[in-house]
């Protein structure tokens, strides 16, 4: 598989009038095409910062990021950020509008996604008429509409309650994997990270440094996240990651 992004010794220090905050320290990783990588770490450690730098929203302080040429990045922010003055459909095509890509082919792809994600009947509804899970799906379609090569997901389902979170994420990750998208996902849910990804990168407390990396190999034929959780290796991964996160209560 070809390398899509190569990150070496990435560091980020925030400057403001109150001083400096180091958020990321010597982060190194190589992301191959079609990989699903999870970043997991304590709250406030610098996970969103890493994604923001990868997407180009934030300047890095030091380090190197090498992208394969002409890469297009899709960034799904921590909250859905749907515009309540636009219908679901108009929200879904926002990126296409901005990038002047409103052609027949792209529009029909958006409509197809709306159908696949069960939103087609609601395409003329406004966001405040949708459930939390539907909003997340609409936000994902908006991100996917511009056909990104690399998908950055920032705790995509953290706004949902536990049960709908499992159902929605099971459904959505399966679709993303089927399309062989390359994904870097930030999560603080260990179960979600193990069941969705090929690789889990565990980060330390702020400043985020790599604590450990796990290649996930689950002995199961199912692609359902719920089934994957029943694989015998699952709890071993869970315990190791739990140990690394070093959470005290």
């Amino acid at each position, binding site marked *: 598989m070809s390398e899509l992004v190569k990150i070496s010794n990435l560091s980020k220090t925030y400057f403001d009038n109150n001083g400096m905050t180091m958020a990321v320290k010597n982060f190194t990783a190589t992301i191959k095409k079609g990989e699903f990588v999870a970043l997991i770490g304590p709250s406030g450690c610098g996970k969103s910062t890493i994604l923001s730098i990868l997407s180009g*929203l934030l300047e890095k302080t030091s380090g190197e990021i090498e992208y394969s040429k002409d890469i297009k990045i899709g960034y799904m*922010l921590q909250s859905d*950020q749907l*515009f309540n*003055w636009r219908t679901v459909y108009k929200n879904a095509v*926002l990126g296409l509008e*901005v990038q002047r890509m409103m052609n027949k082919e792209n529009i029909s792809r958006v409509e197809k996604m709306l159908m696949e994600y069960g939103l087609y009947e609601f395409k003329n509804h406004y966001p405040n008429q949708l459930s939390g899970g539907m909003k997340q799906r609409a936000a994902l379609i908006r991100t996917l509409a511009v056909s990104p090569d690399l998908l950055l997901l920032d705790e995509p389902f953290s706004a949902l309650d536990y049960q709908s979170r499992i159902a929605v994420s099971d459904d959505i990750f399966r679709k993303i994997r089927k399309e062989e998208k390359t994904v870097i996902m930030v999560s603080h849910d260990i179960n979600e990270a193990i069941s969705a990804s090929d690789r889990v990168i565990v980060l330390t407390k702020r400043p985020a440094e790599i604590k450990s990396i796990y290649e996930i190999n689950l002995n199961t034929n199912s692609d359902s996240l719920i089934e994957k959780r029943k694989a015998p290796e699952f709890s071993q991964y869970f315990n190791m990651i739990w140990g690394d996160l070093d959470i005290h209560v």
Partner: protein
Amino acid sequence: MFDEITRYKYKQFLSEEKKHKRKIFAAKITILILFILFWELSARIGLSDPFLTSSPSAIVKTIINLIKSNALFIHIIVTTAETLIGFFVGTALGVAIASILWYFPTASKVCEPYLITLNALPKIALGPIIIVWAGANYSAIIFMTLLISLIVTIISVYGSFTTADNEKLTLMKTFNATRIQMLTKVVLPWSVPGIFNALKINVGMSWVGVIMGEFLVSKAGLGYLIIYGSNVFNLSLVMTGVLLLAVIAALMYFVVAFFERKAMKNR
């Protein structure tokens, strides 16, 4: 889905609501009628001096006379036209300037103290200067109106621009949006409620500007009617002017409120 009793209770609830609304409406009308009656009676029985307070019947007579001499229509048209021009130009220019300020954040920070000073300044103080510059005619009145509504519009609309959700702007950046796109797709739609607030304020502001302008220079209009009436001690004429003004200004406010409701339907 619901049983008989629940549905019956719901019907009762609906009719109670209706009754309540009717009561409120009746009370509004009653106050108006009582006020007019009291005004008329107190003038007739000598409780007040009709020379100073006029009376509803005198006002009606004045209006009829004005209609007969074809003057009423002209006064209303002149004032309303001046107001509408000031209102629309002030709002459009205000939103445009606020957009430019938003587009250049550094420039807007530099301009801030000047805007605040202009806003705090009582614009009537500039009246004499405006008359010298624009001449003692309609353009002075409209200029006055613009000055009063423009600064408030810029400040209030720019204020609502700056409250636009930063995260939504970040989202636009993830799509590599230009600043113009952020303005048209996030900041302006986000500020629709704020713009309507400015519109509502401007209804009042442009009337203030026009009437002040007419007090200073005009030969026609409701403001002229009021100032002329007071000069010749015809208080009925003054009251008529004020009354017509109140009615037309309220109408204009309701039109704006109607469009606001329409625009906010899905928010």
